[in-house]
């Protein structure tokens, strides 16, 4: 394999047999090398196959001035997250998380820690991802010696959620906000405390995550038939009352009408989560 382009001492890009461009990372891999030289395969630590051309370009630009430790730890976190969650993550996380961690370390060294306004929500709404975030802080500490605050575990968790949902960061923040607001409406309507360990709660939160994503992306659950809703309305009228409050809230604050399918699912989830609490 020959070097197509030297990005920095530790990162190069190569073109593989299929003519596809790969980003290759390894300590000192490109030290005193130039394009056209052979790749020292013994030094390769990681090969990134980024399918998306745009992400791949961003990644290369980003790598020009990022220390190798950062890349390594970010790669480590992402692999760990994939393993823990058992899910595919959008490639863009290689760019966003690497960039974020690099920045967080720099800020931390200047004594500029940022408060994470969504920390509380992140802990409750994205439990698994937050656990990964906590683990990530340990990895960062081991790799770079920098101890990042808990707020950063929250940010890392949000980046992971992002990659799970294929979303943009501002959307994740809005999604999280709506989820929390709906949970508040349910909580205060019934004046109950959620059992955050329960399966029903977990399912409700997951539903809300995708509900909120649909809300912001304008994807639309089509309803053809109101029969189910009518039945559920009657059977679970207490839960449906609460759903109506949510409906009004979403209409006023986000200017979206909820379809009867959305109302149906919300009602069922609310009924379950409330019954158990």
């Amino acid at each position, binding site marked *: 394999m020959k070097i197509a382009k030297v990005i920095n001492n530790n990162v190069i890009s190569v073109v593989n047999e299929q003519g596809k461009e790969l980003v290759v990372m390894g300590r000192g891999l490109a030290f005193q090398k130039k394009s056209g030289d052979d790749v020292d395969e013994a030094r390769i630590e990681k090969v990134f196959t980024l399918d998306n051309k745009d992400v791949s370009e961003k990644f290369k630009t980003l790598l020009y001035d990022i220390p190798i430790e950062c890349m390594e730890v970010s790669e480590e976190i992402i692999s760990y997250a994939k393993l823990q969650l058992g899910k595919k993550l959008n490639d863009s996380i290689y760019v966003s998380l690497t960039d974020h961690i690099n920045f967080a370390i720099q800020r931390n060294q200047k004594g500029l820690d940022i408060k994470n306004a969504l920390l509380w929500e992140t802990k409750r709404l994205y439990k698994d991802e937050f656990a990964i975030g906590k683990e990530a802080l340990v990895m960062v500490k081991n790799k770079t010696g920098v101890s990042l605050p808990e707020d950063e575990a929250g940010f890392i968790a949000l980046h992971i959620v992002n990659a799970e949902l294929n979303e943009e960061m501002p959307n994740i923040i809005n999604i999280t906000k709506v989820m929390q607001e709906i949970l508040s*409406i349910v909580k*205060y*309507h019934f004046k109950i405390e959620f059992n955050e360990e329960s399966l029903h709660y977990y399912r409700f939160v997951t539903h809300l995550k995708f509900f909120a994503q649909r809300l912001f992306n304008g994807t*639309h659950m089509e309803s053809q038939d109101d029969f189910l809703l009518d039945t559920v309305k009657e059977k679970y009228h207490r839960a449906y009352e609460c759903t109506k409050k949510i409906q009004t809230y979403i209409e*006023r*604050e986000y*200017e979206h*009408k909820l379809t009867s399918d959305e109302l149906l699912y919300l009602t069922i989830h609310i009924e379950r989560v409330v019954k158990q609490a």
Partner: protein
Amino acid sequence: MDYDKLSKDILQLVGGEENVQRVIHCMTRLRFNLHDNAKADRSQLEQLPGVMGTNISGEQFQIIIGNDVPKVYQAIVRHSNLSDEKSAGSSSQKKNVLSAVFDVISGVFTPILPAIAGAGMIKGLVALAVTFGWMAEKSQVHVILTAVGDGAFYFLPLLLAMSAARKFGSNPYVAAAIAAAILHPDLTALLGAGKPISFIGLPVTAATYSSTVIPILLSIWIASYVEKWIDRFTHASLKLIVVPTFTLLIVVPLTLITVGPLGAILGEYLSSGVNYLFDHAGLVAMILLAGTFSLIIMTGMHYAFVPIMINNIAQNGHDYLLPAMFLANMGQAGASFAVFLRSRNKKFKSLALTTSITALMGITEPAMYGVNMRLKKPFAAALIGGAAGGAFYGMTGVASYIVGGNAGLPSIPVFIGPTFIYAMIGLVIAFAAGTAAAYLLGFEDVPSDGSQQPAVHEGSREIIHSPIKGEVKALSEVKDGVFSAGVMGKGFAIEPEEGEVVSPVRGSVTTIFKTKHAIGITSDQGAEILIHIGLDTVKLEGQWFTAHIKEGDKVAPGDPLVSFDLEQIKAAGYDVITPVIVTNTDQYSFSPVKEIGKVQPKEALLALS
């Protein structure tokens, strides 16, 4: 994308606004309930840039727009009366006749308000410019600007006709044609010529229709029945030509013969009655007249006064009618000023202020119809303001000495004469009395948005007391959408001055959250109340909160519930404003006992019934 154009095109291609019963939208689609789906031109609609497709699902006609659907929807609502009609049609409560009439009038005025508020402002400025000599009266600039300001008022019946037609459910353009006919210059000249007029043997009363309100409303109300009646007897193929033709042919003469006299003849009697009163009991006459002049203006009967006004000046050198009109206008201005002070609805607040200023300039229609009449009580307050000024004028004998153009501040020179100082004092009295009366009488505020239709709950009244010492505020001032949007329920918020929360009702504790930042109480009469101490305080996880009760405890008003460290919580960066909400709001109607100001614990704040 040009949403305005797109929305107009869509409205036209679904068969016009008249064909739409209702329109809502979801994430990607506009969903129309049309009277006749066949009138919608699907192929043309699908050609529109911005429209991705159309679909008929059940009875519903859907237009697929994509993510921009809320913007298109808003544009449609802006360019039509569609959402207005929906809310107007939904009130099913019985009301007394006067209140119903007021509702119709203010409902008809609301859509046309921008036109008359704008024109009114111009009219006021023009009058001011003339008073200060910045513009010569009768100069060409003056004539043109006067037309700009006066157009909407002179042809007010035309604007009202369309708006009223929408309200009564008849064709708005036919309604406009009716108004145009009765305002036709040749007809106006004929009616004003002073000769007896008849129409195929029936007497037509000389009346002025320009700038009037009541005659056209009656006329369009009649037209709505006539139109439906003819429609019923006409074959579908002939409807287009037959229905409007006969509606016009019947309604216009009917208006001239029956509605006209109402204003004109009554006006005659009224003016001679008033004249008689002035001659014999000046003080009472002045109070009565200044107190009711707004009503007289509404009916258009004040035109009958103009000759008397001119006559008074010509014969006696002074006149009492114009001063009364001044006072009535100041009363209206004062009342809407009070609305500006008290309303919590930002949009309505600014409307109230603008209309109050134009009313000071002598253009009262926006204030009267757009604000005071809509809220009803301020209208009564305006009449009180006028009457109060009238009492003062009656005692001091204030008169006007020249014929004035309008009855507002720019025309103050009409008072120049021996009683000038009293005239000014009286104007202030009328304004101040109008403001004070409206402020004290209070009113049911215009809800910020959304509809309001409290179902009346069977059972006795229940009082919600203040749970904290502090300052009461409106829920809408709470910086957390879940509470401020009102979806959790109605209630109030308190900015605490002390960290002690006591029970607002007699009842039992349903919930005390683990984190102690929120308490649920169910009153013995069934009201479910939520007290949420501070915003986002759940994140404190109970720190700085101490609970004095547990779930299931019985409590009486004033019993301690939770103490919290106000200073620490504030210092930690939390907003401590405490929403108190009745979460089963639907089952009650609400009457606030106290809406603003300092409160003590146990003070009554809200009555439920």
